[in-house]
């Protein structure tokens, strides 16, 4: 392109090229501003993130490779050693059936965390799709989706899950996860919808529409990257909530069933012995508590990191 002609008699003759540069020369390599690169930068400096990350790595490896943590078989039970106190041989003692309690608690991580992840991923997909469609199209589409969301939201998940799971004869991870997804997607959907609505009227979306971009392009390129942050943070917190919910349902007798090994079942079995052998309750409670804590802290850290308003 040819050089632009700049007449001299101007209100303010300023050579536009010497406008102060956006950033001092400090960044030789260009800073990434993608959603994840951005978040990663601020997460690395957050001590809570580090703590929760360490805990999560620990629990996740417990769930995937329990044999790394114990050589005992959790299903090898001898009634003769029922309800023993913690000892060098059995770190957490033994349960009513005389099984090594430490290995049972370790093996219990898998089912609890599996339910947490399946439900979190399931609700995340539902929430992102419904929230995106409702928030982007608005009007009657939004009205239908939002009212339906409100209806499901009005049913307490405990009630819904009690009714549904009571009917099922055999309940495994799949069944419990399915019922939890059915009753727990509304909160995240509302969050996603709100997040989408806050971006959908931005001028950069208008600009894309003015260029002739279709709804799919706009949602994918412009709305999703700018609205996903809070939902990703919440989904992590939500995983913690679900692990607690699974324990609650199992404790109430409508969750996982024996012979499955899960923290909820251990809590349920330990309840009658609260006064005589309290450690049977204590150890699974600590594990559930720490897992939920780790997910929630991680979620909070992620939410902060993805929040565009917290940018420097």
């Amino acid at each position: 392109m040819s050089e632009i002609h700049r007449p001299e008699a101007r209100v303010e003759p300023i050579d536009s090229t010497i406008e102060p540069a956006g950033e001092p020369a400090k960044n030789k390599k260009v800073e990434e501003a993608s959603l994840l690169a951005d978040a990663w930068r601020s997460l690395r400096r957050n001590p809570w993130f580090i703590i929760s990350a360490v805990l999560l790595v620990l629990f996740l490896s417990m769930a995937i490779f329990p044999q790394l943590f114990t050589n005992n078989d959790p299903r090898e039970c001898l009634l003769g050693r029922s309800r023993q106190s913690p000892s060098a041989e059995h770190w957490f003692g033994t349960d009513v059936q005389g099984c090594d309690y430490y290995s049972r608690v370790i093996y219990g991580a898998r089912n609890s965390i599996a339910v947490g992840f399946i439900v979190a991923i399931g609700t995340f997909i539902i929430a992102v799709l419904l929230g995106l469609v409702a928030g982007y199209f608005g009007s009657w589409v939004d009205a239908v989706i939002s009212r339906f969301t409100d209806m499901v939201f009005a049913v307490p998940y405990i009630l819904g899950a009690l009714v549904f799971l009571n009917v099922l004869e055999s309940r495994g991870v799949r069944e419990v996860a399915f019922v939890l997804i059915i009753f727990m997607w509304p909160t995240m959907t509302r969050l996603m919808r709100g997040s989408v609505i806050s971006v959908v009227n931005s001028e950069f979306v208008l600009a894309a529409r003015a260029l002739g971009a279709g709804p799919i392009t706009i949602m994918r390129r412009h709305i999703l990257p700018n609205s996903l942050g809070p939902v990703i943070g919440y989904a992590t917190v939500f995983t913690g909530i679900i692990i607690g919910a699974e324990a609650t349902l199992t404790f109430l007798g409508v969750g996982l069933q024996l012979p499955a090994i899960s923290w909820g079942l251990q809590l349920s079995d330990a309840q009658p012995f609260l006064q005589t052998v309290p450690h049977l309750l204590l150890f699974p409670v600590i594990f559930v508590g720490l897992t939920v804590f780790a997910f929630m802290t991680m979620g909070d850290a992620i939410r902060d990191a993805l929040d565009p308003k917290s940018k420097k």
Partner: protein
Amino acid sequence: MSLSVPAAADPFADKPSVLEVEGLVKHFPITQGIVFQRKVGAVKAVDGVSFNLREGETLGIVGESGCGKSTLAKLLMRLEEPDAGTVKFRGEDFLSVKGDELRRLRRKIQIIFQDPYTSLNPRMSVGDIIAEPFKLHPEEKPKQGIRNRVKELLDLVGLNPEHINRYPHQFSGGQRQRIGIARGLALNPDVIICDEPVSALDVSVQAQVMNLLDDLQKEFGLSYIFIAHDLSVVRHISDRVGVMYLGKLAELGTQEEIYTGPSHPYTQALLSAVPLPDPTLRGAREQIVLQGDPPNPANPPSGCRFRTRCWKATEICATQEPELISRGQITQLSACHHAQQNEKIIPAHS
């Protein structure tokens, strides 16, 4: 400051029209109820606006907040569908085209937004932002490659082409607005609608961006519709000026006609509020202070919409709506029954 005043004869008189707007209307319904919405009224944001824009010309649109300027811009971009009226681009009806025809015409009309902080996607690099028009219109893919063309565009708007991989938050407001301008220029449009492109910028940066727009117009023969609420900004860049009040044009004429001989009381009031740089002239000018707020656009006054705040209002103003026509000796179009030039309002020179 000396502004070159165009000759009294309209220099664009023999140029063809690129955009012809006729009777454009947009009413936003006011609804009540959540499930069963019923219409209880309508905000008459744009209510019968007509004008034409000629090749290479800049038409300034001024008016206070809420008078429908930005709605007008969105209607012209087809970001909102009007309730009535026509918009013709070089004789083609822009409002009825669909599909590929619409995409083809969209390339020719581009927009620059007011707020450079929200008009650029914060998650996209500058290169991706300016390349987006080419991705959406593969037919326009530049011969030299998209990336090279983007660098050219950056250079054209006075930015460093090396900054192609940076993200919007790494630029200042003025630089961001230049990115927005580069995006608008990418598809070689004929018309650019500037929706208050400098309102969000510092005064010193405003001048740079205005000069850039001016230079680009000369270089590419662009036509601008320049929307602003700042009279001096509009004066600086416009060939013709339209004054909007409550969804209607109150006065439309050349820059000189509007600024040196305004005939509509509203225009006169607006101009009398512009600060004068020369302190000796300040007392010599009559200042008109309008009473009250603009009326509710959902329920505008009968007849002339300005009559509730007008000191000249008479019976006829309440009963008969004034048309936007040339009246008596006044050469510009004026929507006032009592249109009259008032020498006291405007200083002898400006």
